[in-house]
């Protein structure tokens, strides 16, 4: 470790030291010239980057297009389209069941002749009732009694999770925006760049700094453990297990849900 550090650090310093006594002004002149060259190269690089950005933007604008309403010729595309649209169809059917209390039975055969079905309360009951047209009112009333509770609970859970997902997305976007702002102002430091873009000296320097930081963090952790106080601050300490997993079912669920919502 010592030898490695020695070898990596000293040569760079020593070379400059040798040059200085010879020609100080010439050395400064050379460095100025090389600075100018690097600046010009940097300009060229920026130009290329701008062009690439424009090209990528053009590609992105061709994302969504209207398709003709005819049978898709390619087998793989047809299969993919079937999967996606079947999912969307079932989603819409589920929403209709939730919002209007409707009973729906859907059967779809895939290009491979496999039967996919969606039903509420169940495929067989809806289709059998329609086909046979017997005891409709009795079956309907019986079914309606059982379904609302389970569906209602599941929908509440789903709504809760969806809202949390949206919150996390917003947080991620905010952090990304801050990072882009830093890049725009050119406030970013060399050690904040991706690891792949660093050279040998930078990697060694960063490694050394992080090892020192780790020692400091471990020391602070020890002192924190002695104090035994956990402070919630800038870095949020959200639990790994979602709270609704332990939520009891039944009427009290609503109260617990509200309470949990208040916490978050």
């Amino acid at each position, binding site marked *: 470790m010592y030898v490695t550090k020695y070898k990596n650090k000293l040569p760079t310093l020593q070379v400059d030291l040798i040059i200085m*006594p010879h020609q100080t002004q010439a050395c400064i002149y050379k460095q100025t010239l090389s600075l100018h060259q690097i600046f010009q190269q940097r300009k060229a690089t920026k130009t290329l980057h701008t062009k690439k950005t424009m090209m990528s933007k053009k590609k992105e604008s061709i994302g969504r297009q209207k398709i003709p309403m005819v049978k*898709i010729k390619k087998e793989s595309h*047809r299969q993919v389209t079937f999967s996606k649209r079947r999912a969307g169809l079932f989603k819409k059917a589920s929403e209709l069941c939730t919002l*209007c209390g409707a009973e729906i*039975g859907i059967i779809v055969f895939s290009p491979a002749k496999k*039967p996919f079905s969606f*039903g509420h309360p169940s495929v067989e009951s809806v289709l059998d009732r329609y086909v046979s047209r017997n005891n409709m009112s009795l079956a309907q009333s019986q079914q309606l009694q059982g379904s609302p509770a389970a569906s209602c609970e599941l929908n509440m859970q789903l709504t809760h999770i969806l809202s949390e997902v949206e919150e996390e997305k917003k947080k991620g976007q905010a952090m990304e925006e801050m990072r882009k702002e830093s890049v725009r102002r050119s406030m970013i430091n060399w050690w904040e760049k991706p*690891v792949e873009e660093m050279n040998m*000296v930078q990697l060694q320097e960063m490694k050394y700094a992080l090892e020192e930081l780790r020692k400091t963090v471990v020391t602070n952790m020890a002192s924190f453990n002695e104090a035994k106080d956990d402070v919630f601050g800038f*870095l949020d300490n959200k639990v790994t297990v979602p709270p609704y997993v332990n939520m009891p079912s039944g009427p009290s669920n609503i109260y617990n849900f509200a309470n949990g919502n208040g916490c978050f």
Partner: protein
Amino acid sequence: MRSKIKLSLIANKTSRRTTFRKRKGGITNKLHELTTLCGVKACAVISSPYENPVVWPSTEGVQEAVSMFMERPATEQSKLMMSHETYLQDKITKETKKLESLRRENRESQLRQFMFDCVEGKMSEHQYGARDLQDLSLYIDHYINQLNSSVMLLTNNGASSSSFPPPLHTSVAGAGAGAGAAPLVVAGAGAAPLAVAGAGASPLAVAGVGAAPLAVAGAGPPMAQNQYEPIQPYIPTAFSDNIQYQAPVDFNHQIQHGIYDNLSLDPNHQYPFQDDPFMEMLMEYPYEQVGYAAEHAHIPFMNGNYYNYHQPPTVGLTTTGHMPSNNATTTTTTNTTVV
């Protein structure tokens, strides 16, 4: 314009019926598109308490599809069957995984920013707890592993690009470096009159002759000092002291600019700090000159890289002046070893 609707039974009966009618049309439209695009068969029955059941595409179509469905084995039917409850459960599971993934991603971003702030000496600006420090420690370990991987990658590339001397040669060069440290300094001192007066090789020969007693005199102590002193300037006392830690980073910035063709450096930011850290280092640690000279003799490819980069072809006289100095140094080292 439109607010997100709540996923629950609509209380208003009239509104519920209107929504049902609209969405029923949407579902039939989706069924039509699916069957047209993929060339498949499908059927649907939609019923509600206050309307007659609606079938798609038609009564005969439903009968046909149901009979096709019934012909299938019972296992296949139930395998791909989905009820409202199972559909919602699957959706909850999927969204839960998505949520956990997003949380992990956001936490890593926060830890990364926190780590960089600590490196810059801004640890006190953050409020943190034991859990945060523990996660930060794990993240630092992960990042150090990444750095090690990159170091290994660069080392392999470096080995393939430049050929290192054999072990025997390395040991000889090391011995020469130890013995010839002082003579190299003398040679450096001798170069000044060469540049000023424009003399030939005779001053170098004089310097070479005078190298032997100086090398004998400075054998032990300079080496001992050389081994320990270079470490001192690079050990920061605390990360909270931003200035003390910032200086080495800037210094390396300058060196990197001078040695490697690093395009990622910012010239405007680099220029004001061009001389200050270097001069400060020179005044604080004069003995390091010996160490630097030794390293210069020890690693020839570094020297070659430097000269090739900095000297333009138009300055022919300067190039000619530097070459004899290098050769003379090598000759002096060889002679000392023989003696």
